[in-house]
């Protein structure tokens, strides 16, 4: 019964608004754009931050990543006269042993040695990134196993020439052939493929995810004996030689509570043993926190813009409704003379504004959902439409109708029927 009455009131409100289609449409335009922009911006922002956070999370929120970097002095020294000099920098095997052993809350750690090598399988050949590491790596940076197995401690102990490929690399070099058990040659050395893991691509902040390329994982000891620590690169006529023992050390801490303390400890320890700053420590957890803070700031800015645009939309509605009340003074007088109570006149105008603003909100929602869809379609940028991102603007548009409709409606209710009936 009550619902039927509300439905009837809304139907009459719509009927009334349809008498002035263009005006009603123009009136709600402010809310359409307000809600549309909020929904669109929210979904783009949500998409961007979800992607960033996902990448950071993939690095492991309990992990600390230590990377070798060429120190500034080294860079300069190499750029100047001494061309044939070998630059020696970065993390050492000893660093790894120390990091893995000297902290209480470190659960496990994995060393990473990176080299780029030509690899071939019969006539097919491509450059792969060779990652020398230990089995722990697969715990720290979890990857789905597609076929076979990952590295094991036995491989390390026996210095077995085995290789685990990423799916992407495997497909490139082995095409459609069965992968497991094949032998690939990496600069003359034969490796037996024992497993394939899923590729992951992408970048999180400044941290390279170790296997974003076509990677091949081999036991660290094997990498060390086969390829050594020196890598030579041809660079615009001159040779560039570097000696780096380990490119990365990934450390997993027992609990996220200790991550920052352990990171600080590692920093102090490395400072002691390195006379140059040839390493960088990054903490995904800190990045995650930073990303969250950035998102919060973004949301505040967004909220303000949204608030202002919806405010403008609301004022637009209020303006038209005030004009409408003046225009309909006589109608109000007639309704009052017939027996409408003040409250019922308020309802009538309030329902009209709420219908206007909510319709505007719905159209805006449509626009706001379409825009991210188009963005994703044309630019491939991730966008996420959350339930909150949809419901909130809709509720706000409804609230705007009530908020900005109340004053005009009260004005309407104040109309004196006698004066209104004389009104020409």
């Amino acid at each position, binding site marked *: 019964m009550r619902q039927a009455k509300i439905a009837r009131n809304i139907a009459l409100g719509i009927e009334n608004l349809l008498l002035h289609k263009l005006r009603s449409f123009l009136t709600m335009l402010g809310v359409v754009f307000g809600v549309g922009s909020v929904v669109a911006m929210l979904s783009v922002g949500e998409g961007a931050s979800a992607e960033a956070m996902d990448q950071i999370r993939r690095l492991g929120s309990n992990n600390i990543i230590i990377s070798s970097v060429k120190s500034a002095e080294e860079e300069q020294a190499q750029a100047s006269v001494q061309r044939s000099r070998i630059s020696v920098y970065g993390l050492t095997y000893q660093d790894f042993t120390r990091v893995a052993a000297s902290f209480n809350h470190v659960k496990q750690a994995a060393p990473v040695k990176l080299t780029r090598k030509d690899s071939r399988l019969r006539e097919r050949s491509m450059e792969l990134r060779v990652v020398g590491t230990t089995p722990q790596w697969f715990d720290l940076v979890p990857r789905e196993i597609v076929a076979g197995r990952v590295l094991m401690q036995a491989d390390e102990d026996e210095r077995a020439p085995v290789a685990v490929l990423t799916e992407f690399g495997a497909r490139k070099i082995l095409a459609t052939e069965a992968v497991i058990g094949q032998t690939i040659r990496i600069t003359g050395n034969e490796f037996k493929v024992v497993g394939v893991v899923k590729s992951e691509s992408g970048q999180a902040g400044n941290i390279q995810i170790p296997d974003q390329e076509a990677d091949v994982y081999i036991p660290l000891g094997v990498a060390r004996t086969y390829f050594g620590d020196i890598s030579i690169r041809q660079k615009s006529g001159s040779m560039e030689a570097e000696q780096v023992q380990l490119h990365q050390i990934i450390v997993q801490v027992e609990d996220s509570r200790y991550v920052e303390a352990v990171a600080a400890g590692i920093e102090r320890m490395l400072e002691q043993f390195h006379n140059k700053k040839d390493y960088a420590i990054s903490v995904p957890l800190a990045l995650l926190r930073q990303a969250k803070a950035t998102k919060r700031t973004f949301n505040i800015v967004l909220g303000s813009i949204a608030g202002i645009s919806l405010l403008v939309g609301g004022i637009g509605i209020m303006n038209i409704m005030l004009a409408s009340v003046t225009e309909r003074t006589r109608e109000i007088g007639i309704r009052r*003379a017939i027996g409408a109570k003040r409250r019922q006149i308020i309802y009538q105008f309030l329902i009209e504004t709420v219908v206007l603003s909510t319709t505007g909100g719905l159209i805006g929602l449509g626009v706001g959902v379409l825009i991210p869809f188009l963005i994703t379609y044309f630019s491939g940028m991730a966008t996420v439409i959350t339930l909150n991102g949809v419901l909130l603007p809709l509720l706000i548009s409804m609230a705007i109708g009530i908020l900005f409709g109340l004053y005009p409606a009260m004005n309407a209710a104040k109309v004196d029927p006698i004066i209104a009936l004389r009104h020409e």
Partner: protein
Amino acid sequence: MDGPSAPRNGQEIVRLENAHKIYQMGTEQVNALAGVTVSFERGSFWAIMGPSGSGKSTMMNILGCLDRLTSGSYYLDNQDVSRLDDDALSELRLTYLGFVFQSFNLIPQLTVQRNIELPLYYLGWDAARSARRAKELAEEVGLGDRLHHRPTELSGGQMQRVAIARALTNDPQIIFADEPTGNLDSATGEQIMELLDKLNQLGKTIIMVTHEPDIAAHARNRLHMIDGVIDRIETGTYETGKDRQKHSAGH
């Protein structure tokens, strides 16, 4: 509610006692009603007459519960309404009274049906029942085929019929008509008066303001006002020029 001056007569439907309505215009006071005491009986047909500015509309607005007295009392069907609040007065208008105005006062955006239905909407009737009632009343005033027209598509006489239909929707006890024929030619005015006559015969109390003696002749009682007070009251029908013409034509 029954005070010392409560009504004595069971037939009485409206009574004003020493009614004053004073408009304050800056420093000047306008005594639109300056002490009116009058009582109308149930089922009677009154014409209120008098020169412009004599307070006829003011009195109608008071009687119609659209306005309140400055002082004095107003009893409507034995109830003292001079102290009721706005909502209670609205409720009285909604359930008890009907209005017909000189300028019709239809809502131009709404169809004839919606205009007639208007009181039912506030009475909380459902749509189907309201539509049936509106059709019934439109037929009664001879506009059964115009339900979906807008007032602007109707003649003055037809608009006034719609207004009368609307005034009847809530089955009122009293119909107030402020110069109902003021905007109509005399032939159309006659048709409207025939409708009001019919309603009066069906037992509705009718209180009407008019300037025209021919129109006033339809009422059994005529109240003449001057400067906010009652000048004189005439009872019984009288012959107008028109009546005499009709009679001689008939003989």
